[in-house]
């Protein structure tokens, strides 16, 4: 079990680093799907099979497909990779890597050994999660519904076709007595 965990963790970290450093956006998305699948294995080992399934369905499925749709709509040509290479010289990584390493070192330092390792590793069944979410966290579910509605409205407002100013000018110049 521990070996399985270490293997999944190595895959998750490796593919995440690859996803962040790729020049081709499509390759980054594909690497991230593998990373999410590896994290789903970790969730399953931690006794959360329901969340493991949701990780695959929602993260690796829905959210990554959303990114793919964005890439399709952006019409990135072959010049996109070249431009990305110009934007990301290796020197641009030095300061962020140092910041990330400092944060990681601080986190590992404050991590105390667990003195009372209780009997864990047993799976928490989806029925328990369902009871908790719909009895104790009902208000939270309603707030999430409001949040998703707000996201829907915001996306439809931002995504509507914008009339560019040039068209407006042409219309005004062409017809002097506009309505």
């Amino acid at each position: 079990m521990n070996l399985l965990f270490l293997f999944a963790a190595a895959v998750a970290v490796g593919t995440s680093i690859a996803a962040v450093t790729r020049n081709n956006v499509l390759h980054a998305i594909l690497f991230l799907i593998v990373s999410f699948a590896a994290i789903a294995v970790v969730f399953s080992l931690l006794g959360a099979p329901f969340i493991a399934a949701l990780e695959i369905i929602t993260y690796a499925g829905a959210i990554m497909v959303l990114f793919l749709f964005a890439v399709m709509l952006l019409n990135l040509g072959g010049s996109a990779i070249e431009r990305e290479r110009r934007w990301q010289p290796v020197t641009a990584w030095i300061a962020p890597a140092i910041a990330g390493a400092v944060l990681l070192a601080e986190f590992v330092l404050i991590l105390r050994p667990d003195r009372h390792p209780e009997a864990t590793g047993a799976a928490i069944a989806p029925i328990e999660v369902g009871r908790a979410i719909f009895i104790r966290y009902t208000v939270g579910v309603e707030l999430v519904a409001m949040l998703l509605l707000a996201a829907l409205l915001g996306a439809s407002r931002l995504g509507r076709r914008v009339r560019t100013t040039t068209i407006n000018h042409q219309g005004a110049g062409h017809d002097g007595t506009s309505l």
Partner: protein
Amino acid sequence: MTALPFEQALILAAILFAVGLAGVLARRNLLLILLSIEIMLNAAGLVFIAGGSRFHQPDGQVMFLFILAVAAAEVTIGLALLLRQDHCARTLDADAADKLRD
């Protein structure tokens, strides 16, 4: 079942969060910045799952569901803004995002 890799899971979450943070700080492409934010949110969710597993409570998984909804909402708005910027400024450069109004 042997001992649960609780601390190892926390360290994995910390590494993933650091990778995502480095990505957010280093990248200039807005799409890659959004991807890095997804990695960070996922690492935060991993901590909740590990905690819920350690204390054997379903609350950790409930919190992960909320994080999932927040991530979905965030990525929807983020991608809508990104498409808007691409339409207006014809670039994905994060440095050009201060002219989004025009």
